[in-house]
């Protein structure tokens, strides 16, 4: 039971990351590797703030803003510097490694004895005793749903329409008398903001900041998005954002199941192989759809 709860918890937290990757990969069509740096950026900011005694709830908006700033930088490099999308992300990802070290102070910051968004006086006093073991689950669920609903609402605004248009057909955005570069920068800001927010929540759940925690974040995010969107391709009543969140929990469960039979060192290999399998399966499905049409 504990095992299942922890899978869902982590799946949900990675779901916030997946929402970010959904924006860059699916909406903007931008392979954004900044994610590998902005995920630990959120965690580093969180570690720095919490060790200084800041209320853990303030870390959430601040982590989002820090990630958004990283996204704006990637966007600037790509749009104004005319650097290719993939390279812009790689540059920012590399730069962020050092920045994260500066922010956190060291490569490893334990947060075990500190308050977190999951464990503090407020939560202890509000939550009934019977629900205590599920507090991380409940709070992550609330946060994820909040992010999802806000993102859904945003995508229905005029600004959201323009964001969806720019990934689809940037010529049209220019025709609508809007600078398409700025729209891309905005999209990258929101995506990396969400990613850093995921890092912030993850660090508080794990109660530690690790400089290497972002390595492979993009693979996890992509896997979540691709699983979610390909499994629920034909399910029209589910929003894509919901599908992505469910995909995130499914992926976490797959990795956890695989890890039970292997040593912990095998983690990254399993992640990569699972991702490959998912890619191949989802492509096959695409092929079939075309074959029928």
């Amino acid at each position: 039971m504990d095992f299942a709860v922890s899978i869902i918890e982590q799946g949900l937290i990675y779901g916030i990351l997946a929402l970010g990757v959904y924006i860059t990969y699916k909406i903007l069509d931008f392979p954004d590797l900044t994610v590998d740096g902005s995920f630990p950026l959120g965690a580093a900011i969180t570690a720095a703030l919490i060790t200084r005694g800041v209320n853990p709830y303030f870390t959430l908006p601040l982590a989002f803003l820090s990630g958004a700033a990283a996204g704006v930088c990637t966007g600037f490099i790509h749009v104004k510097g005319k650097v290719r999308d993939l390279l812009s992300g790689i540059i920012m990802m590399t730069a962020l490694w050092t920045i994260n070290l500066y922010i956190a102070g060291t490569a490893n910051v334990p947060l075990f004895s500190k308050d977190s968004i999951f464990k503090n006086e407020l939560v202890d006093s509000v939550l009934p005793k019977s629900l205590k073991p599920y507090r991380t689950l409940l709070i992550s669920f609330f946060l994820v749903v909040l992010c999802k609903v806000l993102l859904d609402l945003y995508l229905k605004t005029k600004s959201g329409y323009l964001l969806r248009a720019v990934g689809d057909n940037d010529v049209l955005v220019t025709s609508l008398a809007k600078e398409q570069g700025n729209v891309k920068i905005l999209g990258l800001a929101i995506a990396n903001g969400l990613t850093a927010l995921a890092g912030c929540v993850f660090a508080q759940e794990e109660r530690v900041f690790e400089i290497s925690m972002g390595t492979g974040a993009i693979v996890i995010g992509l896997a979540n998005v691709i699983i979610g969107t390909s499994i629920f391709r034909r399910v029209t009543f589910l929003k894509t954002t919901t599908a992505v969140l469910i995909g995130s929990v499914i992926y976490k469960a797959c990795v956890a199941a695989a890890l039970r039979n292997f040593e912990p060192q095998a983690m990254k290999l399993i992640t990569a192989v699972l991702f490959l399998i998912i890619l191949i399966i989802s492509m096959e499905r695409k092929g079939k759809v075309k074959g029928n049409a």
Partner: protein
Amino acid sequence: MLELRGIDKYYNPGTVNEMCLFQDFHLKLEKGEFLSVVGSNGSGKTSMLNIICGSIPIEKGQIFIGDKEITKEKEYKRNRRIGRVYQNPAMGTCPSMTILENMALADNKGKLYGLGPGTNKTRIGYYREQLAQLGLGLEDKLDVKVGSLSGGQRQAMALLMSVMTPIEFLILDEHTAALDPKTAELIMELTDKIVRDKKLTAVMVTHNLRYAMEYGNRLIMMHEGRIVLDKKNEEKQKMQMDDILKLFNEISIECGN
């Protein structure tokens, strides 16, 4: 109204492949003119449209709208008063968004894309009305994704979307070339109606000499970056298909193809 003055345009400047397209190119368009542009491939028709819209830079010369110089104005800013329809029907619409969302997106052109609701529900009736005049039944498919429409349906939508907000210029870049003859005819008639109703100044590049003769009140033929024929109003009406074909052939023979 719209004027190109002394335009020089080189491709690949400074390299061995340098190619001069325009040298001291002039064109003046009056308000309300509907200009058809014909010419063989590589004669500079599309480049001229790109220069008007600011999609490509020029080496020398000035572009005016009225008395205002817009040579340095960025493409997206110029587009506030310009609507453009491309040859490729996919360029004028967003495939992953619904018909309704596309219409709403175009309806907001020139205004702020802020955090207000993307689709203004009170405008849906108007969108339906606009789509209904196409006669393609799109008004009943508002929630269908544009990506699943045919090329002709998409091009019709692209045309509607480009003239949704008050614009002054309509730029048509071989906008019927990718369509079957019947759909092309429909789109062409619709274009003519819109240009008349909205009193737009229009520039249409086309390879269809019949459209160039039938529609619009001015016709130019381009060849190697120069205007070799320029007929207006009555002069244009007096022209016969044979005249223009003859000239076209002479040019082609000169080029050896």
